[in-house]
């Protein structure tokens, strides 16, 4: 059983309502011109749980995250985020809903003209009235959480690929959103660096009770997130194999040409006899 000891960071505050779904997709469809991207997609993400969306390139995985954020509007269906319907919201109104969401973009999407610290504290510096000292403290806190404190004054171009993704995670969590969206957060990274990203995802979910949607086509990382848990113990956070109950909180969704072809936990996915899933898993 692999166990990784990680230096603990101060606990972070978090908002969440246990009964209200963090994300609720109801019969969502979307097409670009003639191409159908999503067909009648429905799923629910409960607070503190994880959805892992698998699928080949172009199957509509990242589109789901953009719809959740309101960066795209669906042609049909409803999208609810923490009790607010966002699919018909105006851009100005949706800004408020986005406070509940943090997004880790593929490649990080860090602002290359800002330092690591400014990137991480961007939302707090620019979109809130918080005193600068408080923001600085929070930035140091989250950079400590992803173990990059010493890089606070560096520019993103000075960081490695894995470090950039961790800074992106720190930026997404800095304003304490109850739900985090990860778009191919480990793609293009070596297995060791990818594992450190997976650990951050698990830590945030279990220690900070963040609901997560993980979009990936890296099966190793998907199963790692689904089958591990983080526990705080003696000022440290241990990552270890999760029990069956915890594993059930992580659900896989398999997308194929815009349709959900599978929904279930890791064990069910492994046991699936669907030829496409078998091919994908092999």
């Amino acid at each position, binding site marked *: 059983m692999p166990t990784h000891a990680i230096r603990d960071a101060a606990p972070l505050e978090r908002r969440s309502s246990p009964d209200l779904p963090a994300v609720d997709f109801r019969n969502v469809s979307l097409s670009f011109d003639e191409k159908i991207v999503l067909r009648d997609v429905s799923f629910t993400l409960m607070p503190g749980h994880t959805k892992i969306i698998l699928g080949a390139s172009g199957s509509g995985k990242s589109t789901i995250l*953009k719809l959740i*954020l309101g*960066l795209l509007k669906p042609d049909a269906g409803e999208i609810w985020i923490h009790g607010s319907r966002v699919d018909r919201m105006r*851009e*100005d109104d949706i*800004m408020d809903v*986005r*406070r509940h*969401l*943090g*997004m880790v*973009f*593929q*490649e990080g*999407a*860090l*602002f*290359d003209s800002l330092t690591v610290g400014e990137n991480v504290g*961007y*939302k707090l510096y*620019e*979109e809130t009235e918080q005193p600068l000292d408080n923001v600085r403290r929070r930035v140091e806190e989250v950079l400590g959480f992803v173990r990059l404190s010493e890089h606070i004054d560096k520019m993103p171009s000075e960081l490695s690929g894995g470090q950039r993704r961790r800074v992106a995670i720190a*930026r997404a969590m800095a304003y304490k959103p109850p739900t985090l969206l990860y778009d191919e957060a480990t793609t293009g990274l070596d297995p060791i660096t990818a594992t450190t990203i997976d650990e951050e995802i698990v830590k945030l979910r279990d220690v900070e009770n963040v609901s997560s949607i993980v979009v990936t086509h890296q099966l190793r990382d998907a199963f790692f997130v689904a089958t591990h848990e983080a526990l705080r113990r003696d000022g440290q956070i241990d990552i270890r194999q999760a029990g069956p109950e915890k594993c059930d909180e992580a659900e896989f969704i398999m997308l194929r040409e815009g349709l959900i072809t599978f929904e279930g936990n890791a064990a069910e996915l492994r046991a699936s006899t669907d030829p496409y899933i078998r091919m994908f898993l092999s």
Partner: protein
Amino acid sequence: MLTLLTDWLKGALLGVQGYVQLQAATMRGIFSRPFYFHDVVEQFDSIGIGSLTVVLLTGFFTGAVLALQSGVTLDQFGARPFVGRLVSASMIKELGPVLTGLMLAGRIGSGIAAELGSMVVTDQINALRALGTDPVRKLVVPRVLAGFFMTPVLTVISDTVGILGGWLVAVYQLGVASSLYWTSITDALYLADAWMGIIKPFILGYVIVTIGCYVGLGTKGGTQGVGRSTTNAVVAASVAVIAVDFFVTRLLFTLLY
């Protein structure tokens, strides 16, 4: 053939619609909160101070060559002492605004399109939106304000150094008396000319920056797309400078003279 024409027309109309929508969003951004003041200051510095060298050099040599060329022509009519009048009128009414506009189209139009284009293809624009920031307010409004207010300032500087360049050539090359040069300038300069020279750069600056922003934010297709956007922005802004200059000049002639 008809399909191609229809597609082209559809694309052109969508382009105009998108450009107009960006103007509307920019206006809303200028007159409502949140307002990113430090970005505005940064852009005033980048667009204004950053373009000073190119504008100084262009203005100076334009004025100098204008004096040189017109001196030779005026000689045929025995009118060499009036070279100052010709240099100042040309610089203030036409060459100052247009050449400054063209230089800014090259420097700022391309810079804005490349910067915003790379932000689009690396998902930084989406990241801004995800973090609750409206990219138009954060990126477009500061650039538009800086372009609108700094282009006239740069044009006045260009006019000034152009007239100085003309003076150097007139005095040291053409042998025109310095006092005669300056007198011919003040005698020939009317208030309407000054208005013409100061109103046009406001409009040209606005057009250059909004084209750069529109093209940059519409970038598609990775790094190749950024290159394409940069070229498109420079070409479109340069053509727009010449075309807008003509229409504004025509309008100002009606209003001022």
